């Protein structure tokens, strides 16, 4: 019954499937639903869940299973998000106060963006984007801001993947996306109009890290009727500069 004889990647794969079965609206679920979502036999799930609950990667509340405290603790230790958040929160608060809209900070991970911090504005449109959530590059301003500064081969690779249409407005035409990226490289603001969520528009700027790398991207988003990219350009660029400086200062004090 031991899984020692199974190959390591097998076990890790199964653990990942179980943990990733919990989505952002974590209402909890029973073993049967978890097995179904993970695409694994119930007996396997039941056995792995036992260990994961003991180690607090999962927690059980009656029949319901949730993601557990140990994951939260480990996640808080992830260095890159933690350093970025520390540097970014005052800058994000300032940007939120200036614009009144939702402010997001994201970093690139593979062919997607991961949201590192969210600051809610007065906007009546609640942000669908949560801390720890993943975002497509082609359909978000954050992703476009980051991708515009990537190398041509890198851009080719990202655009070679499937470009999902999140709304009827999502740009899935590759030449059109390349033109947008070229405009952003020439100095235009990265923007997205109802391309990721039907009511929401967003504008974003990249944040520079050491040696001209892209450390992150910052965005302002809100209801499409309220967001005027022209008015957002100056506060966004100021925020990106301020954050770039704070990151550089943090690094130099760490060394």
């Amino acid at each position: 019954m031991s899984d020692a004889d199974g190959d390591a990647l097998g076990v890790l794969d199964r653990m990942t499937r179980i943990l990733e079965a919990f989505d952002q609206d974590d209402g909890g679920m029973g073993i049967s639903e978890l097995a179904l979502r993970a695409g694994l036999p119930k007996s396997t799930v039941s056995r792995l869940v036992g260990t994961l609950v003991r180690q607090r990667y999962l927690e059980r509340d009656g029949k319901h299973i949730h993601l557990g405290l140990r994951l939260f603790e480990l996640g808080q230790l992830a260095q890159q998000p933690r350093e970025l958040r520390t540097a970014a929160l005052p800058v994000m608060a300032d940007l939120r106060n200036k614009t009144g809209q939702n402010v997001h900070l994201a970093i690139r991970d593979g062919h997607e963006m991961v949201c590192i911090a969210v600051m809610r504005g007065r906007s009546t449109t609640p942000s669908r984007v949560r801390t720890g959530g993943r975002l497509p590059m082609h359909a978000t301003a954050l992703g476009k801001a980051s991708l515009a500064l990537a190398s041509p081969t890198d851009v080719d690779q990202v655009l070679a993947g499937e470009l999902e249409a999140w709304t009827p407005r999502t740009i899935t035409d590759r030449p059109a996306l390349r033109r947008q990226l070229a405009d952003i490289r020439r100095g235009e603001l990265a923007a997205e109009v109802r391309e990721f969520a039907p009511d929401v528009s967003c504008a974003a700027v990249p944040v520079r890290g050491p040696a001209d790398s892209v450390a992150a991207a910052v965005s302002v988003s809100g209801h499409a009727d309220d967001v005027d990219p022209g008015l957002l350009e100056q506060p966004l660029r100021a925020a990106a500069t301020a954050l770039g400086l704070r990151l550089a200062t943090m690094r130099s004090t760490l060394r």
Partner: protein
Amino acid sequence: MRSAPRQEPVSVLDRILAILETVRESHGSTTITQLALATGIPKSTVSRLVGDLVRQRYLTRTAEGVVIGLRLFELGARASTPRRLSLAALPVLAELFNATGEHLNVAVQEGSEMLSVVSVRGRLRPAPSHAGVRVPSITTALGKAVLAFTHDELAFGSVVTGLDLRSRLTFEKELVSVRTEWVAIDRCETFPGVVGVASPVLSPDRIPVAAISVAGPVTDMDPNRMAPLVRHAALALTNRLALQVA
């Protein structure tokens, strides 16, 4: 049996979790050699498992070794208890911060320690704790606030296990006063120069699920003035959590 290195984990899942636990405890970069030493797992196996963990983004390679990766950040942000607690706590913390301007924490019990799930920076520099950080239950106001109301004999035992009889009696006497006052105080017992005041947050069936605390400089923060504010905040959070459940 406790010994270093720990009893060698046998199953692959146990080995994976032992590696992650060791990376967590290192609070920074860890090397394959250090991981093998700390877990008792053969170095070649550690090397292979770490490779898998890096590929699946649980760990990230750095110049010095490996650190916690982005997948754990993503999963951790979805963890149920911290999410639920911080959602309920944010308005309460905002009000408490306006009233005090001091360093605030909401923490839950984790073994013989308290784990902060959400914090607000006050004027203490450096901040003594923040979300994701553990502090000892036995000396902190957060820990004492929960211990005074806990029914969990096992957890209580693990906290007081190191105390001699006399210290244990003093400690239990202190907890009696916490139960009367609904407020626990840490007078520079955990961090030099830092005084903390905490009150328990209870579930509808009166089990302590968390504690909320205010911390400030001992020279300048009067715990007696903070006590009613913290008590009020803990009660507000208790009520908000009960509403969430309903």
